[in-house]
């Protein structure tokens, strides 16, 4: 799951110099703003064929938060 999430984020930000780990703070470390986070969520929704409610996006602070959320949703 981490590799898929990493690939989506990497494809979105298109910055080879930014290493993405589970601890990466999506907004702070990667310089993503709230609109870009919603765009990323749309990409996750397409990739994982699911709907992510807005209220859940608030919990997406780190890459690990996203991975855990998607793993739980897929279970």
């Amino acid at each position, binding site marked *: 799951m981490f590799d898929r999430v990493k690939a989506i984020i990497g494809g979105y930000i298109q910055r080879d110099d930014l290493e993405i780990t589970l601890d990466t703070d999506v907004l702070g470390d990667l310089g993503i703003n709230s609109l870009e986070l919603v*765009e990323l969520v749309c990409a996750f929704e397409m990739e994982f064929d699911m709907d992510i409610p807005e209220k859940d*996006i608030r919990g997406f602070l780190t890459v690990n938060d996203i991975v855990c959320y998607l793993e739980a949703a897929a279970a």
Partner: protein
Amino acid sequence: MNIYLAQATPDCECRLIHAALDTMPEEKSVRMKRCRVAQQRTCMALSEVLLAWALLEDRNLKVRKSDRFFGKYGKPMLCVSGEIIEFNISHSGPFVLVGIDENPLGVDIQQWGRDVDLIARKIMSPDEYEAWTTSPDKVVAFYDFWARTESILKWKGVGIAGLRDASLPESIGTHPVAVPHGYSAAVCGCLPKRCSGVLRAQKIEVEMLLTQAERRRVAL
């Protein structure tokens, strides 16, 4: 309500960060130092320097690190010399927008971007989406919509979780803010009844901000 706009340049990152650390709360300075995107770091620093300058200009208030606190939903707030200061900050690309008012406000600036159809479906109601599809320029209309929506969320201080509820009390309104081509911006707050059309932001030069920040440091 006063709105200020400044533009960061890559060559001023170090000086801006140096100047910002005088007033920036510890938690934000940790985030700024940790951020791996240079433009983001620069704009975080610029927003702090611009806010400190605006408070001095507008209210003759000297802001300190300890003046910052967080509201109910984590909205940054200021209490200077016992006075609650309503402010809001937004940045996108190299631009920083700062608003100061007697009443709560939210500001947002957003650089126009790529294909927006998917995200428009995600964030707009069916009626809003329908209206948007008939816009002559869908990209501009989308970013105007987002800036307005984000300014409302920031006025409410609720974040993305409140995306579907853009309702406002009667005394509160939103207005577009004039910003350079390629960007949309809006402010939400208690606007004067006579306020119509596009609000003008006062453009502030970074060099002037840095000079004043240096003078403040010497005076201390």
